[in-house]
C-alpha cells in the first residue's frame, strides 16, 4: 500500500481526525498549562476548546465535497453520511456545553477527552458499511461512555448504574459479534452490500435467522429498545449530566443510523413480513416486535415514575420504539426520517436533561415536587422545558410533531403500502399516552405554586444560553423542517 493512498485515506477521515486530535490536545493543554487553575476555570476552558474543535470539524465537513468509499465499506462518504456526522457532532457540542461548569471531578480534561473520543467513534460509525468496522466503532463509541457514566466517583448509585450499563453492554457486544460471525460464515464477506448479494441466494435457514436475531439484539441494546433497555433508567438517572446527554442523544443517533443502514443494506433479502394477515421470518417482524414492546413498556412504565430523569429514560425507550417502527416498515426509505427524528429528539432530550440537572443541583433531587412553581422562579427555563417536553410529546409546531409524522408516514409508504398499519396505530396511540406524563411534569412546573423556597434559581450563563439555543432550534426545526430535509436523500 503506497503512501499516496494513505494520504487519501486521511482526507476521508479528516473530520474524525480533528476530533481525535482535540481529545488528545485537551489532555495535554490541561496537563501543561491549566494545572494550577481552579477546577471551574479548567472545565470552562477545556470544554470551550473542545467545542471549538468540534465546530472546526463541522466547518471542515461543510467545505468538503468528498464522496466515495474506502476499502470494503470501511468509510462510505455520501451527502447523507456527512450530514449524519455533522448532526452527531452538533449533539456532542450540546453535551460538551453542559460540561462547562462541571465541578464534580478534578479530572475534567479526562472527562472531556473521553467525550470527544466517543464522538469520534460515533462519527466513524455513521459512515461504516462493514461488519468489523461497525463493531469496532460501536465499541469505540461505547467504552468511553461506560467510564463517563460513573465519572463521579463519590456517587454510589452512579457506580451501580455504570456497572449495569457495562455488564449489559458487554453481553450485547458478545451477541453482536456472534451474530456477525454467523452472517460472515454464510456469506464470506464483511461488506454490507456484498452480504446482501450473497444472502439473496441463501434460504432463511434457522442458523441464519439466529445470526440476524443476535446481531439485532446487540443493536437493540445500544438504542435502548425493550426488552434490552434495563440499563437505561439507572444510567440516565445517575450519570453526570454531559454523559447522560451523550448517551441519550449522540450515541442514540449514531446507533440508529447504523441500524438503519444494516437493515436496509445487508438484511434486505431477508426482510420478512409482519403485516396483520401474514408473518414471515426476517428482520421486519423482529424489529416490529422490538418497536411494539419498546413503545408499550416505555410509555406505560413512564406513567408511574416520580423521578423526572427516570421518566425521561423510560420515555427514551418509547422514542426508540417510534424510530424502530420505520426501520421495520420501510428500511429503504428510513434514513431521512430517522436522522431527522433522532437529531431533534437529541436536541430536546439534552435540553430537558440540562434543566432537570439545574433543578437537581438546587434541591438535591429530581423528584417532580422539586419542579413546583418553576415558572415563577425561572420563567425562561420553564418555557424552555415546556418546549422540550411538548416536542417529545409531538405537539405542533415543535420538531417532535413533524418528526413523528415523517416517521410514521414513511413507515406506511412502503411497498405494498400500509403493511405495518397495526404498528403505526399502536405507535400513534402510545404517543397519545405519553402526553399524560409529560403534562404531569409540566403541571408541577406551571400549575402548582412553589412550596417553600421561592428564590429565583441561579443558572450559569453558558448553561442558560445553551438551553435557550436548544429550545430555539427545536422550535425552528419544527416550523422549518425543510432545512434538514433538503440535505437528505429522498425517495
Amino acid at each position, binding site marked *: 500500500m503506497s503512501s499516496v493512498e494513505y494520504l487519501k485515506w486521511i482526507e476521508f477521515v479528516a473530520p474524525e481526525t480533528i476530533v481525535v486530535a482535540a481529545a488528545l490536545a485537551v489532555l495535554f493543554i490541561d496537563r501543561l498549562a491549566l494545572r494550577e487553575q481552579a477546577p471551574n476555570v479548567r472545565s470552562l476552558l477545556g470544554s470551550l476548546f473542545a467545542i471549538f474543535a468540534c465546530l472546526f470539524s463541522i466547518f471542515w465537513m461543510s467545505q468538503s465535497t468528498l464522496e466515495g468509499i474506502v476499502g470494503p465499506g470501511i468509510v462510505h462518504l455520501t451527502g447523507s453520511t456527512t450530514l449524519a456526522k455533522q448532526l452527531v457532532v452538533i449533539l456532542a457540542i450540546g453535551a460538551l456545553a453542559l460540561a462547562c461548569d462541571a465541578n464534580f471531578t478534578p479530572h475534567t480534561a479526562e472527562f472531556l477527552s473521553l467525550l470527544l473520543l466517543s464522538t469520534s467513534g460515533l462519527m466513524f460509525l455513521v459512515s461504516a458499511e462493514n461488519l468489523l468496522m461497525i463493531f469496532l466503532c460501536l465499541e469505540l463509541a461505547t467504552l468511553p461512555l461506560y467510564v463517563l457514566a460513573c465519572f463521579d466517583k463519590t456517587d454510589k448509585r452512579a457506580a451501580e448504574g455504570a456497572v449495569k450499563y457495562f455488564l449489559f453492554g458487554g453481553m450485547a457486544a458478545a451477541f453482536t459479534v456472534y451474530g456477525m460471525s454467523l452472517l460472515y460464515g454464510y456469506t464470506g464477506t464483511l461488506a454490507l452490500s456484498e452480504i446482501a448479494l450473497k444472502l439473496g441466494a441463501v434460504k432463511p435457514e434457522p442458523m441464519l435467522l439466529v445470526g440476524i436475531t443476535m446481531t439485532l439484539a446487540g443493536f437493540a441494546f445500544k438504542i435502548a429498545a425493550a426488552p434490552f433497555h434495563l440499563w437505561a433508567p439507572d444510567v440516565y438517572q445517575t450519570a453526570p449530566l454531559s454523559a447522560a446527554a451523550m448517551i441519550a442523544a449522540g450515541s442514540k443517533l449514531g446507533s440508529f443510523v447504523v441500524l438503519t443502514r444494516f437493515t436496509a443494506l445487508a438484511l434486505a433479502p431477508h426482510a420478512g413480513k409482519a403485516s396483520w394477515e401474514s408473518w414471515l421470518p426476517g428482520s421486519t417482524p423482529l424489529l416490529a416486535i422490538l418497536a411494539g414492546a419498546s413503545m408499550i413498556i416505555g410509555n406505560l412504565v413512564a406513567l408511574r415514575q416520580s423521578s423526572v430523569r427516570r421518566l425521561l429514560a423510560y420515555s427514551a425507550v418509547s422514542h426508540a420504539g417510534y424510530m424502530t417502527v420505520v426501520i421495520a416498515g420501510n428500511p429503504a426509505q428510513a434514513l431521512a426520517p430517522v436522522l431527522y427524528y433522532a437529531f431533534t429528539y437529541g436536541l430536546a432530550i439534552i435540553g430537558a436533561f440540562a434543566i432537570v440537572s439545574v433543578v437537581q443541583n438546587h434541591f438535591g433531587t429530581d423528584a417532580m415536587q422539586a419542579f413546583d412553581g418553576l415558572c415563577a422562579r425561572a420563567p425562561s427555563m420553564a418555557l424552555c422545558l415546556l418546549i422540550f417536553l411538548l416536542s417529545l410529546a409531538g*405537539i405542533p*409546531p415543535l420538531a417532535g410533531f413533524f418528526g413523528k409524522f415523517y416517521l410514521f*408516514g414513511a413507515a406506511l409508504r412502503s411497498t405494498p403500502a400500509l403493511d405495518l398499519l397495526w404498528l403505526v396505530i399502536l405507535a*400513534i396511540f402510545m404517543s397519545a399516552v405519553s*402526553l399524560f406524563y409529560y403534562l404531569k411534569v409540566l403541571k408541577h412546573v406551571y*400549575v402548582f405554586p412553589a412550596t417553600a423556597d421561592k428564590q429565583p434559581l441561579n443558572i450559569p450563563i453558558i448553561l442558560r444560553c445553551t438551553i435557550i439555543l436548544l429550545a430555539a432550534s427545536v422550535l425552528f426545526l419544527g416550523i422549518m423542517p*425543510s432545512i434538514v*430535509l*433538503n440535505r437528505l436523500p429522498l425517495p
Partner: protein
Amino acid sequence: MLAWTIYIPLTAGLALLLTRPRSAVLARWVSLLAALATAGIAIVSMGNFYGSTAHLTTIVQVPWIPQLGIQYYLAADGISVTLVLLTSIAAFVGVLFSWNVEYRASEFFALFLILIAGVFGVFLSFDVFLLFAFYELAIIPKYFLVAIWGSTRREYGAMKLVLYSFLGSALVLVGMIAVYAVLPVPTFDMAVWAQTAFPRSFQLWVFPFIFVGFAVLAGMWPFHSWAPTGHVAAPTAASMLLAGVVMKLGAYGALRVGMALFPEGARYWAPWIGWLAVIGIVYGALIALVQKDFKFVIGYSSVSHMGFVLLGLASLNLVGLSGAVLQMFSHGIIAGLLFGVVGRMVYDRTHTRDLEALQGMGLAKTIPSAAAIFGVAIFASMGIPGFSGFVAEMQVLVGAWHASPTLALLAGFGILAGVAYSLRVLHKSFLGGSPSTPAWGKHDRGPGHGKADPISAPEGLGGLILLTCTLIVGLYPACLLDLIVPALRSPFFEGLLRPLIK
C-alpha cells in the same frame, strides 16, 4: 386579510407570554384590542363574501415542506367565514367576561389568545396537514387554562379534556397518514384529496377514524364525557370558548375533512352517526334534567345541542348540512352566553353553583340584569322562534326527516326534554327564595353579605353582544345561510351531496 385573524392573536399572545407584563390592566386591554381587531376583520371579510361568485377565496398558498407535498395553504369559503365570525365574537366576549382575572393575568390572556389563533387557523386551513397542526396547537393552551385558573376538580378536568382531544387527534392522524401513504404523489391539498376517488374499501375504514377522531371534540356520544367535566372545571372564558368554539372545531373537521373528502365512507356510516347523534341529544338532555350543579346543566345541554350538529351532518342533504353549520354558530353564541352567566355573573358572586343553594338566594332580585339575560338566553337555547336556535334546529330536523323520520322524531323528543331542563334550571337558579334568606351568608366569601355587586359594564356589554347576535340570526337567518348554502353547493362538497340532490 383573513389570515390576520391568526397572526394578530398569535403575536399578541406570544408577546404577552414572553414579556409577562405585571399589569393585568395592560394584558386585558391588549387582548381586548386583539380580539376586536379579529372581529373587525371577520365582519369586513364577511361583507366581501356576499354576492361574490367565487366559492373559495385563497388567502395564501406557498410550499411549506415541499418534500412531503405540504403547503401553507389558507383559504376561506362561506362555512369558514361563518365560524371565523363566531370565534371572533366569542373571543371578544370572552375577554370581556374575563375582565376580573387578576391571578397571573398576562399568562391567562396569552394562552387565551394562542388558543384563539389555533382555532382561526383550523377554520382557514385548506391543507390537511396544516389544519391538523393548528388543531393540535389549540390543545395545550386549553390544559393550562383549565388547570391553572379553573375551579371544581380542575386538574382532573383539564387532563381528561386534553387526553380526549389528543386521543381524538390520534385517530385523525392515523387516517391522515394512511391517505398520505396511498397517494402516489404526496400532497395534503384538500382540493386534490376531494378530487381523488379513493377506493370504497379504503374509505370505509379511513372515514370512521377521521370522523370519530374529530367528533370526539364535538362531544359525540359515547365520547362526550370530557365535555361536561371540562366545561365545569374551566374558568368562565375558557368554558365559553370550549363549548362555544372548540366543540365546533370537531364538528367542522368532521364535515370538512371527514365527510367532504370521503363521501363513500360518509354515506355508509351516516345511519350509525345519526343514531349516535340522537342518543347524544336525548341522553344529554335527560342527564341535564337531574343535575345539581348549575354548570353541569349547561355542560350536558351542550352535549345535547351538539348532537343536533351531528344529526344535521348525518342527514347528508343540503337542508340538514346547512342547518348543522347554522347550529354550530347558534350554539356557539348561546352556550357562550349561558356559561358567561353561570361562571362570571353567578359563580364569581355567590361562590356556589349548587342549584339548591342558589334557589334560596333570590338572585332575580339581587342581580336582576343577570336574571334577565339568562332568562332570554335559556329561551333561545330551548329553541323558541325568533332566536337562532330555532332556525338551526328546525333545519336539522327537516333534513333528518328526509333521511330517517324515526331519528327526527326521537330528536324532537330531545327538544321536549330540553324545554324541561331549561325551565327547571331557570326556576331553581334565579326565581326562587329571596335575598334575605340566610343562604347568602353561608356561601358568600366576599365582602357585603347578603348583597352582590351589580353586573359590571364589561359583563353587561358581553351579554348584550351575544343576545343581539342570536336575535339577528334568529330573525334574519339568511345573513348566514347566504354564506353557508353556496359553500355547500360548491364543487368541494359535490361528491358528498350530488347523488342526493338530484
